[in-house]
């Protein structure tokens, strides 16, 4: 995917020169391996910094919320689905955007890769679908498919669903992947095992809110954990408060989450945040046949009423 870089730069330069947009939101090379920094370009010099590789896992739609003016944005499959959701939820207008679609073959997972090596990784290079990871006294080349973030491994929407132009040919969508394999595992647990599982999952949480802030869906002017009149959730590390935050946040994302994986990617403690949101995505699919952000013309299930909506919970 590194060959996309030149195409992105070319498109960015063109749309800026044409005055079509005021800024182009993309990534520039990070200062640590497997990290890239969201970056906006407004001039030739800043356009030159734009790159694309397999460490562009953050969801750039996060930077569109309530923005004014015309913006070009580099967006892979899941990002475009969030852009669609943003448009549907009136957080940005479609006319403001020039979506530079990126057919994506997946992002690598820096948590997973760091855990694979004892020593510090100082360089990660990619060539085709091979990733070379090196540090002081070691260098290993591994196939990218073994290093993918979990959501990328089961992704069925790698191509942008909404775009103004593409940086490359559309890629083949994956088939035969079970998106919800891990959810089913947890569903099969006994209540006691489930309790222990979630207790263990959330124990390291430090309430930094990186997961919430990296998520394009979380744009409430005052998040429910920050309300004070009345105060719904405590601010300490009390496990009840930590669980309330994560579970309620997942519910707020129900029917809207595109499994972009930004939440898991940004967590400094390596918590598998997607365990909650994936369950709700599965429920939405099973109850309403709904996957978020696939079409600008469809309203989400929690927004609409159909006569045949399941109601077996009404006894």
């Amino acid at each position, binding site marked *: 995917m590194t060959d996309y870089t030149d195409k992105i730069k070319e498109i960015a330069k063109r749309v800026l020169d044409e005055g079509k947009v005021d800024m182009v939101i993309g990534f520039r090379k990070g200062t640590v391996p497997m990290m890239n920094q969201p970056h906006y370009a407004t001039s030739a010099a800043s356009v030159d910094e734009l790159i694309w590789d397999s460490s562009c896992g*953050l969801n750039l739609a996060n930077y569109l919320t309530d923005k004014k003016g015309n913006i070009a944005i580099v967006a892979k499959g899941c990002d475009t689905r969030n852009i669609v959701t943003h448009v549907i939820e009136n957080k940005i207008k479609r006319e403001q955007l020039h979506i530079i679609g990126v057919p994506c073959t997946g992002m690598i997972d820096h948590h997973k890769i760091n855990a694979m090596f004892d020593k510090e990784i100082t360089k990660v290079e990619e060539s085709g679908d091979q990733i070379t990871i090196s540090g002081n006294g070691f260098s290993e080349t591994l196939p990218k498919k073994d290093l993918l973030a979990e959501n990328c491994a089961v992704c069925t929407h790698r191509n942008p669903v909404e775009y103004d132009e593409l940086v490359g040919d559309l890629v083949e969508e994956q088939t035969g992947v079970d998106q919800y394999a891990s959810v089913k595992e947890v569903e099969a647990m006994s209540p006691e095992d489930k309790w222990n599982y979630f207790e263990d999952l959330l124990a390291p949480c430090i309430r930094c809110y990186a997961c919430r802030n990296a998520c394009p869906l979380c744009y409430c002017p005052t998040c429910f954990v920050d309300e004070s009149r009345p105060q719904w959730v405590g601010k300490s590390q009390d496990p009840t408060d930590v669980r309330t935050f994560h579970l309620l946040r997942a519910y707020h994302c129900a029917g809207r989450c595109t499994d972009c994986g930004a939440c898991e990617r940004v967590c400094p403690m390596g918590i598998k945040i997607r365990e909650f949101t994936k369950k709700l995505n599965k429920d939405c699919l099973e109850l309403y046949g709904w996957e978020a952000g696939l079409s600008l013309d469809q309203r989400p299930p929690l927004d609409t009423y159909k006569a045949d909506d399941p109601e077996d919970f009404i006894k």
Partner: protein
Amino acid sequence: MTLIKIDKKSLDQGIEKAKAAYRVFGPVKQKTDHDFKLLDKSELPDFNFQNTRLSPKAIIYPQSQIMFEYSLDETSEDCRIMKEVENVASPMAVVGVRPCDALSFPIVRRNFDSPEYQDTYWIKAYEATTFVGLACNSACATCFCTSAGTGPFGEEGLDILLVADGNNFFVKELTEKGAAFIKAAGWSGDADANAASKIDELKKTAEATITAAVETDKLREKTILELYDASFWEEEAFSCINCGTCTYVCPTCWCFDVQDETFGKSGIRMRNWDSCMFPLFTHHASGHNPRDVKYQRVRQRFMHKLKYYVDKYDNGIQCVGCGRCIRLCPVNIDIRRICNKMNSFDAAKAACEAVAS
């Protein structure tokens, strides 16, 4: 200054022995990363690490700390009167703390221990703690301790410095507290005459592995206003998502929030870590917020660490070069980049360029 040489076995035995007199904290691998934890009986610190994910500041200054308790029972004679909770810090020892993290404690102390006000919670915990440091024989790519006031073999903030040499350790006693710990651990065995030069050799090798640096020499001479009004803040702040990761993993960040929590007829007043990155940090009851735009908050963090603290205490920057914020920032905001931008900022030149463009 006593210099002892012991082997790994004596080191481990000594730590186990010291648990009789101290609550001992050490780095332990938990799932994928090392973090400091209170060592159980027979549990030993794992020195097979570069640095812990979270800083050891939580040992002295827990993320959530109860300060007072109160009763709301109208029949009680103490109704609505704040009562102090017991604050007796029993002796603690932090074994395996890196010199960068060790320096963070004297830096933070200036905030909690001033001539006018003493934070009894922080000070009591700090004074009850003995810091047994572990020198770094090689650095990470993100370490810049040598340009942040210390170094891989730095001694400020430590009571003992351990230097690993193959399967042996030099034990350098630095303070009286350090001497007491050595006694409790039963470490003995004078190092030979070559020890000092061996340590020096290891130190030089370690310092040579440091590739990252920040420039701070011109920060003091610039005025607050010229840095505050600089034009680069909006661009640098763009990617920030205003989470609290940098402030929570940073050993020298200390801001907190005070909250009351009531359960039925009784309650506690506690303090929790807070972050200047959160939008509500400076939010007034009237609705006014002096830092309601993102770049103002990002600017506040870096101005505080690299300028306000510098001016206030005339003792260097409020950063020890541990590199955690660089490694853990989800959007790769790099303090080295910003520090160098601040240090090299030329207000007059920028004004000319602004006029010209």
